[in-house]
């Protein structure tokens, strides 16, 4: 019974660790051309105002400060998130310590002679595995992409209704000072699809 529990625990731990194995993901191909740098993902609302004569772009002060900070941090050409994910040293170190943790946990589990402890550890590992599995499944239940909400924009604009969805704020190199808003709407799309 003890050996079965130990073996199960090790297998569950290895299976659960697969969730964190981002290190095995293929490295994204880097393009030599200047790509826009995403510095922030936030929500945006497009609304109409019949009393206005000019279009207005309103940015919360905190968001502007954040954009300024993140823009300053992207001197290396990558966003904060990308730099974290692509830090090979840190990923390797995290992997090494995870390996050591699982190894020593296995040794400790095998050496411990208390049946209660073994059961408790097996239960913890099983719960951790369930959480890992649930996390993977929850991704499938994530809300629809922002483009789904933006499909309603033309209809909402004609009806004078506001439309709110996610937006990536990107810093681009351009000759003029025009701020461009690119909406994910296809020509053939009909609202509500």
């Amino acid at each position, binding site marked *: 019974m003890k050996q079965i529990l130990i073996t199960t625990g090790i297998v569950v731990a290895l299976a659960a660790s697969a969730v964190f194995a981002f290190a095995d993901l293929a490295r994204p191909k880097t393009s030599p051309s200047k790509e826009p740098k995403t510095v922030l993902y936030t929500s945006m609302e497009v609304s109409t105002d019949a009393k206005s004569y000019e279009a207005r772009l309103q940015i919360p002060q905190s968001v502007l400060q954040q954009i300024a900070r993140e823009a300053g941090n992207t001197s290396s050409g990558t966003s904060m998130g990308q730099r974290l994910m692509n830090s090979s040293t840190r990923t390797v170190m995290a992997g090494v310590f995870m390996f*050591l943790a699982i190894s020593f946990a296995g040794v400790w589990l095998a050496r411990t002679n*208390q049946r209660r402890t073994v059961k408790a550890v097996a239960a913890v590992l099983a719960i951790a595995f369930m959480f890992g599995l649930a996390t993977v499944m929850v991704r499938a239940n994530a809300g629809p992409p922002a483009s789904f909400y933006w499909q309603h924009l033309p209809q909402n604009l004609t009806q004078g209704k506001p439309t709110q969805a996610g937006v990536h704020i990107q810093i681009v190199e351009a000759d003029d000072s025009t701020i461009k808003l690119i909406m994910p709407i296809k020509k053939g799309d009909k609202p509500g699809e």
Partner: protein
Amino acid sequence: MPVTRTQGACAPSMERAENISVAAWPRVKSRATTRVSAKTFAAIIVGSALMSAAFASSIPLQASIVTVFLFAGPHNWFELRYFLIRLPVRFGRSRNFFLVAFGGIFGLTLAYVSLPALYYAGVWTGENWTTAIAWWNTALLLWIAALVLMRGRQTSRRDWSWALPVAFVLCAVNWLRPDLFSLAIVYLHPLVALWFLDRHLKRTKPEWVRTYRRCLMFLPLLLAGMLWQLSRTPSLTDDNGLFWRITQHAGAELLPNISSHMLVSTHVFLEMLHYGVWIVALPLIGATGAIWKVNSIPVANHARGFPKLVAGLLVFSLFAVAILWLGFSMNYTATRDIYFTIAIAHVLAEAPFLLRMI
């Protein structure tokens, strides 16, 4: 019973000398001098926590400035005195434990202070700052794991070898996000004082332990209420150097999507609890003598103790507190930065002494 100067002629063995730290404040005496009921004790705890939460939530920046100015220095003095009380006269079979403990405190503090010092001296450009912090956090975790293992081996009843895999898991998490790991230490460190109080009560006022633990269950509710109330508040205006530094310390830059008002308030609230435990609760509950009397400290009172050294250390520390207040008065921002860098020593010192009490 502790071996006092009058009993010193008995030439106690190492075992008995080591027991001094355990019975620094004898249970019998402290029980006899109980003046406050458990209900009153609970009312004081809950009342203080509510007042701290209200104060920290309403004026977080001002509360942070005032709290650090008034209590940062004194709480370090009280911690030093408490640790001296818990220090055995002779280390005996705990010699290696204390060697590793003091070596770690010294080495890790030196490394922590040297990073910004080298940067400001122009020796280091600050490049790979995150990696340097990750290495420091790793050293800290492995040091604590070593102490846990050593402490566990002192009693055959304990098997604390689980500490190593847990430390490695934490190391892995640390390497994924060293900055957030450091921020977690900032928030978790104040809570360690509550653990000290729990162990202290178990020895000096065991009849209060149950009440205290029930009060502790109120803390997550209070924190959840604070977070819920403050999550929708706009971020604080950090338009000057000091306010910016306070919001950064609370993690405003690392957690940009969370209101800095909520972050600073939560941090100040936890700091207030921390200071309250060290300055008020621990020195008063179960104390057998005045705080300025050196003879209530076993390592000074024992026949083979060091009364002059202990007295000198405490007086010197009082001067350090006075200098800190002077520094705060002259340049609050710079002194605050220096203090929070050097204060890592007291954060580290808590680990071995807490382990000795478990």
